[in-house]
């Protein structure tokens, strides 16, 4: 039988990572430079690389791919760089500023220079129209369709590419929004138009208008990108399934994500925790901190009990998205982070990144500002002739020169000391990011192994761990493409929600079953369209419940059987327990009734997952893998020393390497600092323990 492939593709700000799983239990990785102008160019370059490595021509290779799982940050970048579509908002007359006001919050209470966020839709393109529903969805005033038509005309004149429609109380009845949707689509046939009742049909106006506006803002960006990618793949004879990574940690078909592009806004790092969990579970652990340092950004998250924490809402650049997403902290720190001197004469790193173009100075692509990778090169951590397996020759002289002129001279240091300073500052920044997901939540980072990912991660991880006194690090063999690996381990997943406000005592179980059934059918239909057989589909239900007259809800997972069987008592008992666990008390004895607000269904389609390959056993002695030595900076001793360099591909399970040492793999280099000792486990992960180094 012909070998078939499954491929994970993770497009980052600087690199496009690929991971290949095969029907013959073979895995392979590849890394190419990202092409931000049209990311699909980088994706195809990566596929070509994999094809060449396997001795196949591109068409033959692509023809044998069954599934491509694709993680894209095009929507995220569109919001962060304000490169989304020119967007208009049609909303209820009198409330057009809600989007910009963000309920009047200033996140920093005592900082009078902390500014509000520039709205993604400026006031001149936020238009109110007459037409009003009351709190229960009854019509108070008919929708003024003529006003909608005029608004569409004005937005058309303003050159909008996307329109969000969000009316007061549309969660209770979508009729006005749907009517407006038809009018606007007719008036602006080329525009991406979406309504809040489709994107997020739940109560709370600000959450809905913000999510819907973001959805419109990134809709054309994602649509164009996926359209172009699909055409290119089909042109190469791709006949398999393309799946897109979502912020909730699951994957979905392109059409599904283009209908709700906001579900991809925080999807970039969403596959990392799944892969990290798989590697620590192989070592018998369920908890870890995952850090992923790529070229542009650094993501930190926490896995507990084998899964990353999930939130029902979150923010991107202080803008609300009320859709389920993994709980991940992102800061601007990566190999491309630019070093600079601030007004106070202090050395700073990032958040600006040299990205893929022009990239760090050492890439020789016209970059003039010294980046983190330039410092790593000067410090001896990188081999100028073996970066990305030798495919990108590095210009060491250029890097030295840039650091000398822009960092060392203003600070009055020599080049090496300046590079060491850049290394230290960015490591401290990243350590702070790890604190965000641990210490800030009252957790001690020292109790968790640190799983290291990203192309630049393994050069910096030891120093991050030292700063936080984390004793154990795990560097998976696929660390530089960990998100791409995670994509092949992620299930198809779709989240649905409906508002049904009722006192729990009056709950009509038939109506509840109806809503759940409707969402399950919708989930089944999507999963079937994605090619998942019925036996691999399952659904999880949850109810957003609260005590009567409370304002906020607890999302309580409820077994489908409890809904099927109408077991109100079991649900109530579980709610009391959960309320007490979260909030310190319950009102079971007081006999306070509960109130249902929303009904949620998550539909999951289990995918076949590649097994992690194992490594041949060897002894403790890793001497056979030594490929040379070079001078590199040892931070613990603030000095350059001659450090052995190991060929990662030659290491065997059980090998031990005391720091300081460098372990080179094709797409990443691991720096084992003097405080740590590395040992190889059966899956090829390097486990670093504090102590034992020299």
């Amino acid at each position, binding site marked *: 039988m012909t070998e078939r492939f499954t491929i994970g593709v993770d497009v980052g700000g600087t690199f496009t990572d690929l991971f290949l799983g095969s029907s013959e239990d073979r895995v392979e990785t590849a890394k190419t430079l990202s092409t931000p102008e049209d990311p699909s160019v980088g994706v195809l370059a990566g596929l070509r690389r994999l094809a060449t490595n396997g001795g196949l021509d591109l068409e033959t290779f692509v023809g044998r791919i069954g599934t491509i799982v694709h993680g894209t940050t095009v929507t995220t970048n569109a919001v962060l760089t304000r490169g989304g579509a020119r967007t208009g908002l049609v909303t209820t007359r009198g409330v057009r500023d809600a989007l910009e006001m963000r309920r009047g919050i200033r996140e*920093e*209470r005592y900082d009078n*220079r*902390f500014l509000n966020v520039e709205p993604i839709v400026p006031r001149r393109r936020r238009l109110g129209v007459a037409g009003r529903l009351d709190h229960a969805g009854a019509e*108070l005033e008919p929708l003024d369709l003529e006003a909608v038509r005029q608004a569409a005309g004005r937005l058309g004149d303003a050159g909008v590419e996307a329109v969000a429609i969000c009316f007061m109380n549309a969660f209770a009845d979508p009729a006005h929004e749907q009517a407006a949707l038809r009018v606007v689509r007719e008036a602006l046939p080329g525009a991406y138009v979406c309504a809040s009742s489709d994107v997020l049909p739940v109560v*709370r106006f*600000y*959450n809905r208008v913000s999510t819907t506006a973001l959805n419109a803002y990134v809709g054309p960006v994602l649509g164009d990108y996926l359209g172009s990618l699909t055409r290119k793949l089909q042109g190469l004879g791709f006949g398999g399934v393309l799946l897109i990574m979502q912020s909730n940690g699951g994957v979905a078909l392109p059409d599904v994500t283009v209908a709700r592009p906001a579900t991809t806004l925080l999807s970039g790092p969403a596959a990392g925790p799944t892969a990290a969990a798989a590697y620590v579970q192989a070592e018998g652990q369920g908890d870890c901190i995952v850090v992923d340092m790529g070229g542009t950004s650094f993501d930190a998250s926490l896995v507990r009990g084998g899964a990353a924490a999930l939130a029902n809402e979150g923010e991107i650049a202080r803008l609300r998205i009320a859709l389920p997403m993994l709980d991940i902290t992102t800061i601007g720190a990566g190999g491309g982070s630019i070093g600079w001197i601030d007004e106070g004469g202090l050395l700073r790193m990032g958040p600006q990144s040299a990205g893929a173009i022009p990239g760090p100075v050492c890439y020789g692509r016209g970059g003039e500002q010294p980046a983190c990778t330039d410092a790593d090169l000067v410090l001896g951590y990188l081999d100028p002739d073996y970066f990305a397996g030798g495919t990108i020759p590095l210009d060491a002289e250029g890097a030295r020169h840039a650091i000398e002129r822009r960092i060392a001279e203003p600070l009055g240091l020599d080049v090496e000391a300046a590079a060491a300073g850049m290394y230290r500052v960015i490591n401290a920044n990243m350590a702070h990011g790890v604190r965000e997901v641990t210490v800030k939540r009252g957790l001690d980072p020292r109790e968790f192994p640190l799983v290291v990912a990203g192309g630049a991660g393994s050069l910096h991880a030891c120093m991050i761990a030292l700063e936080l006194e984390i004793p154990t690090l795990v560097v998976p063999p696929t660390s530089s493409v960990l998100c791409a690996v995670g994509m092949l381990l992620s299930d198809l997943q779709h989240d649905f929600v409906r508002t049904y406000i009722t006192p729990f005592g009056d709950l009509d179980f038939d109506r509840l079953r109806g809503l759940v059934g409707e969402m399950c059918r919708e989930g089944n239909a999507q999963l079937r369209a994605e090619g998942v057989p019925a036996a691999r589909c399952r659904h999880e239900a949850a109810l957003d419940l609260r*005590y009567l007259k409370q304002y906020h809800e607890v999302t309580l997972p409820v077994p489908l059987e409890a809904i099927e069987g109408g077991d109100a008592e079991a649900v109530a008992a579980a709610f009391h327990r959960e309320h007490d666990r979260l909030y310190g008390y319950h009102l079971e004895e007081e006999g306070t009734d509960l109130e249902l607000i929303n009904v949620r269904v998550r539909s999951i389609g289990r995918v076949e997952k590649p097994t992690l390959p194992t490594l041949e056993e060897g002894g403790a002695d890793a001497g056979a893998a030594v490929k040379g030595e070079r001078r590199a900076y040892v931070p613990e001793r603030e000095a350059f020393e001659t450090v052995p360099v190991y060929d990662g591909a030659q290491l065997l399970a059980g090998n031990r390497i005391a720091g300081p040492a460098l372990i080179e793999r094709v797409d990443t280099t691991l720096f084992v600092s003097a405080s740590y000792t590395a040992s190889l486990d059966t899956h090829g992960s390097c486990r670093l323990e504090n102590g034992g180094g020299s």
Partner: protein
Amino acid sequence: MSRADIDKVLVSIIARGLKAITDEMSLSMEKTTRSPILCEARDFVTGLYDAEGRMLEQTENLPILSFSLSPVCKHIAEIYRGNVFPGDVFFHNDVFTYGNQNNDVAAFKPIFAGDTLVAWAAAKGHMADIGGAVRGGYNPNATEVWQEALRIPAVKVVERGELRKDVWDLIFANIRLPIVQEDMRAEIGSCTVGERRLVAMIEKYGLERFEAHKQVLFDSTRKMMEAEIRGIPNGVYEGESKVYFDGKTPGSVYTIRVKIEVEDEHITFDYSDTDAQTNGFVNGTYTSSASATLLTFLQMVNPDIPHNDGMVEPIDIVIPEGTILNASYPAATTFGNHLCPPNADAIIRALAPVLPERVTAGWNQLLCSLSTGRDPRKDDDYVDILFMGLKGGSGATSDCDGYDHIGMIDASGGILDQDYEMFEQQTPHHLEKHEYLVDSAGPGRFRGGLGVETRYRVGGDGTQIVTFGDGDVEGAFGLFGGHGSTLNRIELRHPDGTVYTATSKDLVSDVPAGTLYVQEAGGGGGYGDPLERPAEQVRREVEDGIVTREAARDAYGVALHPGTTRIDEEETARLRGAM
């Protein structure tokens, strides 16, 4: 434990851990309370205090409430010494034993490590009712505390985990709305969350290490604050501001005078020359006024200083009893929290000449309303404070525009608008408008923040609307050539066509259904000469509809070609030259 055993990383882990706990307590309050004043607007604070009542950490959604928790905690620790047991809960609101406002009722729960009292958890929020003569608590006719509220001195409502039902019933027999009971249960729950987490933390690190590291945290925080104060030139700086209308005598005016003395790493705020107290409810308590002083000063220093006892050590605040900022027993004081904005104005005016880059121009003063009545849809009573309507603009700084629609300085953007749909779920009213108020920002090189216009149609029966605040006589002030901003205003347009303009401390009963409530919250003051504001920035604001063409011309000297939003360069140059 010696100094050498101090683990610096552990100090910051404990500091962040304490912050995580008070944040989680705050989340518990936000998620479990019933009154929209608490769960939507977050008019509450949560904190942890050591066994002596010294502040370990707070989550200050509304800073004006925050700095009275530690004095009350010290008071409880003192009077109940030897009589505090695991599982106890105390309630407190009494303004004559360090409380800040009658409606702000606190729950305190002691935290034990074994048999040793090690800390207290506290939560305090603005209750929807607190008895007294007026539903919701703001009684502009009050002259003594008993006319405004039920006094709750420190009382134990739960002893060793057992509810003292007699005490509980006595309290809640004197409060109108049943949801207040539920919200006080939520406060206890929040304290329990704090207790569980802190006990776990102390178990993990050991009490001795925890205590030693706590002291290091206090010391380092104190040093940070001292360094900030040392950055202010030594000297004596004076400022004043006006409080208009005491709720009784039309046209009455009172003056707040502050003398700020900076000596090396020490700062004193002295209010000895402030006017005497009023005979109405426009009076402060020491802790509400001192909170106002602290929160204003904290905006002028490094915002990263942790909030614990070390922060307040180098700061002295002198407010003689009998002044409008510290009224004598048994004065009415419900308005006291709202003397924060004029107090802040006096401090800003005093320090602006010496700290021009740290101060803001004047902020929009609070003018607020509270509606109560019966919701026929649910056949139930409701209380709502219209937070979305009160949030005006902040003052501009030397290099930034003010913050639009942020609200009074005592919250600084910490309290939120009700979500519009939740407002219509929770009250019988119907929202017609909530948008930026055109031309409300004080013009300047940097403009003040925008104010907001709110309109809702009154629904339901027996509606009573209470107003409390200021800013309808004098708008937010400009600084260094910046202009002042628009005034606050609340009016009721009745279905019969008559219009009633509310005073700043008013009580309006029997508001008919169908009345249109109209409120304007003013903007913040501008900073620097508006003629120096780039014309393009002004033009864009005209395009966005927040500055009119007339205001662009009159205040900024920017002329636009008729019928377009293009700048008339020639006319602009002429106007700016002539102004």
